[in-house]
């Protein structure tokens, strides 16, 4: 066995990419397939971080498992790649233990909404101050195309070989009704608006959710014969409609139906740390 050669990738000297400071360039190329939109969302995220004008030193990012779960590994912040579905729980610990930090959870639909659904709704209820970016590609991609809680009815997946029989979640509605203060949805094509949205949400106190519809060119579109990543992007181009402030209950996505995007919720609610501190000061008074 030859030592080293199998592991060290030859990293060629290169010109400096403008996001060199925010991305871990030594880890590229990343694992995502050609035509996948996660990379685009990461670029938008990096641009959003830049735009939000926050202290990057005091910012950390947590991911779960899955294709999108690898995002944390490519972003040059304090970054955590945790267990399946527990990104939000992990981030809650970080935020509550050190409220000075800015915490971002960047993960996929299966991770955040399926196995992590409980943490999602509870963190929204508590209004823990964090930004959740949820990449929704309608399928479990890393394990090979299983049906997800976002897979539209009658769409195919490997564990629903005869069409999905479960209605999908409307993620903005779920977030809204559990108490999130900022809810938006964009597709991977809306890079500029997504960037702005991320910058805005980063400065919003409370539990913010941004859903990013992204093409999965290898599983979702292949199993459902929707072409490659570019075809999916073209579909978004033709079929997405921006409706800011739309009632979140009207945001269902069917199989190849219109996708409504925009910023839907932007409200004020006391955050978890606010309530906690209020309670704590009350306790102290009561003791005196």
């Amino acid at each position: 066995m030859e030592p080293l050669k199998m592991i060290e990738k030859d990293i060629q000297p290169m010109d400096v990419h403008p996001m060199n400071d925010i991305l871990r360039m030594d880890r590229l190329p990343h694992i995502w397939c050609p035509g996948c939109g996660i990379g685009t969302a990461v670029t938008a995220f990096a641009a959003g971080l830049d735009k939000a004008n926050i202290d990057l030193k005091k910012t950390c990012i947590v991911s779960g498992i899955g294709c999108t779960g690898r995002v944390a590994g490519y972003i040059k912040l304090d970054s955590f790649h945790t267990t399946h579905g527990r990104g939000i729980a992990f981030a809650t610990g970080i935020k509550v233990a050190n409220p000075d930090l800015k915490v971002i959870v960047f993960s996929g639909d299966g991770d955040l909404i399926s196995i992590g659904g409980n943490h999602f709704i509870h963190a929204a209820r508590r209004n823990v101050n964090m930004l959740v970016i949820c990449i929704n590609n309608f399928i479990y991609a890393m394990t090979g195309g299983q049906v997800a809680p976002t897979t539209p009815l009658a769409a195919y997946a490997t564990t629903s070989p005869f069409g999905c029989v479960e209605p999908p979640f409307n993620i903005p509605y779920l977030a809204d009704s559990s108490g999130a203060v900022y809810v938006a949805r964009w597709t991977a094509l809306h890079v500029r608006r997504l960037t702005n949205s991320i910058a805005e949400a980063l400065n919003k106190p409370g539990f913010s959710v941004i859903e990013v519809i992204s093409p999965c060119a290898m599983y979702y579109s292949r199993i459902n014969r929707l072409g490659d990543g570019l075809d999916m992007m073209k579909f978004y181009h033709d079929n997405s409609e921006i409706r800011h402030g739309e009632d979140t209950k009207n945001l269902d996505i069917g199989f190849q139906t219109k996708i409504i995007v925009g910023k839907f919720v932007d409200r004020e609610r006391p955050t978890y740390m606010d309530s906690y501190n209020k309670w704590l000061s009350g306790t102290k008074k009561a003791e005196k």
Partner: protein
Amino acid sequence: MKTNLKAVLTGTHTLSGNEACIEGAFAAGCLFLAAYPIMPAIETIERYLKRSAEVGATFIQMEDEISALAAVIGASWTGKKSMTATSGPGFSNMMEHLGLGVMLETPCVIIDVQRTGPSLGIPNRAGQADMMQARWGSHGDYEVITLAPGSPQEMFDFTIKAFNFSEKYRTPVIVISDEYIAHKKEKVVIPPADGIKITPRRYFKGQKDKYLPFKRDKDFVPRMVDIGDGFKFHVTGLTHDDKGYPIMLEECQEYNVHPILWKIRNHVDEIVEFQETGTVDAEIVIVYYGATSEAAIKAMKQAKDMGIKVGGLKLDVVWPFPDKKIAELAEKVKAFVVPEINYGQIVSEVERCSYGNANVIFVSHGEKGINNTDDIVSAIKLALKEKERKKGIIEYRSQAGSS
């Protein structure tokens, strides 16, 4: 390192095991507890809440035990000493994140107040049936440190020890008590703050760009930094290299996982602690831990009064197991008597380490909670009678239960 003075309730108190445990945690510098309430560990949360305001510690009640341990691991990376408290069913739920704690080499403390199992079992009755789970409950290879206190005072002392071990070896440490100790009120002496030894976190002090989160010191323990210190590190639960970047190769698995075991296995002698009484000339040695201590000590006395040469070995640290000590004793004594509130867990370890040199008598579950003194004495007598070297464990079945 000095402790926060407000956190240490110096003096003599009457505390239950659960309360003493939290006092120990505060004395050790714990500032974060995430938990989900469960019988019989609730009093830990209550005590923590009651004292958290004056100590300045944070508490969060999570939605389940899975997220509780996840939050604890997250909080630990912010630089706060963190813990969670639970009981059997909750401990089972934590198994996945015990593995994460090991893989991320995160110092944290888990208090498991055992109750009768399996499943929901009997919530307000003691048990010792999570002992093997503490060692083997998560998937993959790992080693943990597990301490088994036998009284409220030990709950206090061992919780501090647990925090120290966890910082020293950067690993989750489990304090495994049980309902009996958790609810027993006893005198607990809390020493002055400067009399409490605290192991500080092993921080990295070099240049920022040179930091590697999993680069090991000579004792195989890597150094930590806090989130927000600007190190921009990456950690993952996947098999990773020193940088914390995942590499999915056989060599990296060996490189990553083997030292996680070594850092404990190589220091077994420093970690293992036990209390010996009268083992020098003993024919029979009782091996006991946790809630069985009381009954075992009583039985020892009774047997001595009968003229039997009996000694006792109390395991303070159960995992790593004191292999050498047991093997050494096995060559001298006739038999070991192991009382446990389960159907045989630590006793099989005793059997393993005695290498056929001594018989192993197991005293299972008593009927009313903890083991019965009479049963242990009878087992000692049985051990004396048995002249042959038996292969396998001889179980002493309690007679009282059949009434």
